[in-house]
């Protein structure tokens, strides 16, 4: 279907479309709690390469990523920091040494963009995960379909894409663009839950009436509608600002709204379903788990709150 190359240049086999189209696909994935994380993780890796890699490196990887033949991911975070300014993963003449914890999609990915340290400076580097110097330990998580793994690098070969402060800016931009796409996925998940709640409220009866007639249920669903629409509005708005000033703030706002909408949706919609809602048969537990894995993978709310406030305060100066 070409989903794997939506935003990539046609030259590399992509569709050359924008974040808006990518968002629509992600939203559909979110609605169905699609298991594998590869669509988004590959998007981020390819997106980063497309912006920051040399023509040679692009030539090597982008066609494979665009066709879906290769899977990519990003590994910026370390324990205690979403974007460590002095990463413990270090790059020297001998290659990449150290680790990255709980990297989404790393169980299967062929390539990763990593944030590492070289000569005391942060760098954005590209590393082939299929080499023997790379070990992956698949983790037992509450959302195992994300294929999260601890990555260890023992003098692995890697290529530096960006160095110094610019590397942190590059990582921030890659994360923000992924955040916008993921906000669509989260909106899709929240919307699917909203619809499930509405349908259940119209069908399930208690005390002689459908439970949707009780204001506690009815108003909870209406409040959720509000959150879903706010989340959608911010996600679309951020996607439309791609490449323009104000994009980072819009992306952070989209992420915050999306996390909130999906969290509240999972909490309230399970609650509205009563006992049925907590069984695996209902499948709502998949959404519950997905809310947190998406909330964690690219930095929790506090990280994006801080980023947004810094952007707002910068604008205001």
């Amino acid at each position, binding site marked *: 279907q070409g989903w794997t190359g939506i935003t990539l240049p046609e030259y590399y086999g992509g569709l050359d479309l924008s974040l808006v189209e990518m968002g629509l696909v992600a939203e559909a994935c979110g609605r169905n709690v699609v298991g594998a994380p590869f669509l988004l993780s590959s998007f981020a890796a390819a997106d980063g390469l497309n912006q920051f890699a040399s023509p040679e490196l692009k030539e090597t990887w982008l066609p494979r990523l665009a066709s879906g033949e290769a899977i990519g991911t990003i590994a910026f975070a370390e324990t205690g920091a979403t974007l460590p300014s002095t990463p413990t993963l270090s790059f020297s003449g001998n290659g990449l040494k150290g680790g990255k914890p709980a990297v989404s999609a790393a169980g299967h990915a062929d390539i990763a963009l990593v944030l590492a340290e070289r000569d005391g400076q942060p760098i954005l580097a590209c590393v082939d995960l299929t080499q023997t110097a790379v070990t992956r330990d698949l983790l037992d998580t509450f959302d195992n379909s994300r294929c999260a793994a601890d990555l260890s690098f023992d003098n692995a070969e890697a290529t530096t894409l960006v160095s110094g402060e610019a590397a942190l800016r590059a990582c921030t931009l890659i994360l923000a663009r992924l955040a916008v796409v993921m906000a669509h996925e989260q909106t899709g998940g929240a919307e699917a839950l909203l619809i499930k709640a509405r349908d259940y409220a*119209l069908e399930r009866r208690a005390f002689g009436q459908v439970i*949707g*007639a009780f204001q506690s249920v009815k108003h909870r669903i209406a409040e959720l*509608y*509000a959150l879903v629409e706010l989340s959608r509005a911010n996600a679309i708005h951020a996607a439309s600002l791609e490449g323009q000033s104000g994009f980072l*703030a819009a992306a952070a*706002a*989209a992420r915050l709204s999306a996390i909130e909408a999906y969290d509240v949706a999972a909490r309230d919609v399970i609650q509205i379903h009563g006992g049925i809602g907590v069984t695996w048969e209902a499948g709502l537990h998949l959404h519950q788990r997905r809310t947190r894995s998406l909330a964690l993978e690219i930095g929790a709310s506090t990280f994006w709150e801080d980023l*947004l406030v810094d952007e707002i305060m910068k604008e*205001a100066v």
Partner: protein
Amino acid sequence: MSDLDAYRAKAQEFLKLHVAEYGAEARKTLSEEQDLELGRRWQALKYDAGYVGISWPKEWGGQGLSVLEKLAFDDEEMKHGFPTVYFSISLGMPVPMILRYGSGAWMQERVTRAMQGHEIWCQLFSEPAAGSDLAGLRLRAERDGDDWVLNGQKLWTSWAQYSDYGVIVTRTDPNVAKHKGLTYFWLDMRAPGIEVRPVKLTSGGAHVNEIFFDDVRISDDQRMGEVGGGFSVAMETLFIERYQALDSAGFGPPLDIFTDLVKTLTVEGVPAIKDGRIRQQIARNYAQRSALEAIGMRALRALADGKTPGPEGSLNKLVSVRSRQRLGELAIDMMGVAGVRRDNRNNGAGRTDWVESWLDAPTGRIAGGADEMLLNTIAEKILGLPQDYRPDKGVAFNEIK
């Protein structure tokens, strides 16, 4: 530049020319009466410049443009705190209803005078026992030959103390179901038997009134719509201004007034901007407001494309006013002991001052539909959930318990 952009640019130019004389700064130290007078002059000036009745038909003195031009002008005007508040209901609902139901030279004069700010119309709908449940209103209108005689009480009527005319919904038949016994009229607010008493609200201001009707006589000519058809005319009134400029600030101060405040403050010896609790609120309010603004822009684009905007525009009031209330609490708390000070009782201070905004917030949450009613509307109209249990349905008004 699109035609609309050009229109907006011209409006900005016009407003810029007059902001010093009529804008927020000029109004600050005026009494309400002085501010009203300034507003009347501003209204007249706009009328002459073709900025009143922008989307109204030309035969009534309007400009015959679309709602987009009107929204563009309102949007720009709102930014500078011009004194439009006394005329917004008048020109927003009663007068457009006159455009639909009225005719003749005398009525044309009323419309023109209202557009120029010389006359003001009010809207007499709610009563003490009929707020959310408008159809439960009791004010009686009894037929007497070609006249009707009105007795009872209205409440929450904005700017009635300055109004020359009004539109009113009355109960003309208590023996049928409550929605069916209502009739709609216009009337002269100077008619004998009408008494207007301002009502003080939370912030201490009194723009709403209690109005007593003691054998007020009006002619059947003043009827708008059928006898017994008043409820649907009332609904028509409420929905006539379907597209308004959305305000993500919930009629309170914009967020940059909050961030500007944060920058100046120290909380327990630490710059306020370093406190995660305060950062969190800035971020969350920003996200919410940016989403509401994006929804508003999308609605405008839909209108420009000749489409109907989505129903999500109805979220604005519910979401924005509630947040404004909480943000006001935080702003006051951040100021520490001195947060109790009330240094700014100026006209329009609710738009710039967190204390005034917070004092007024409960009124904002009720005005234009309580949260519960807005949630019901979303649940029923948008999501298709069932109506609440209504034991009064189909019961004659005088038999409802």
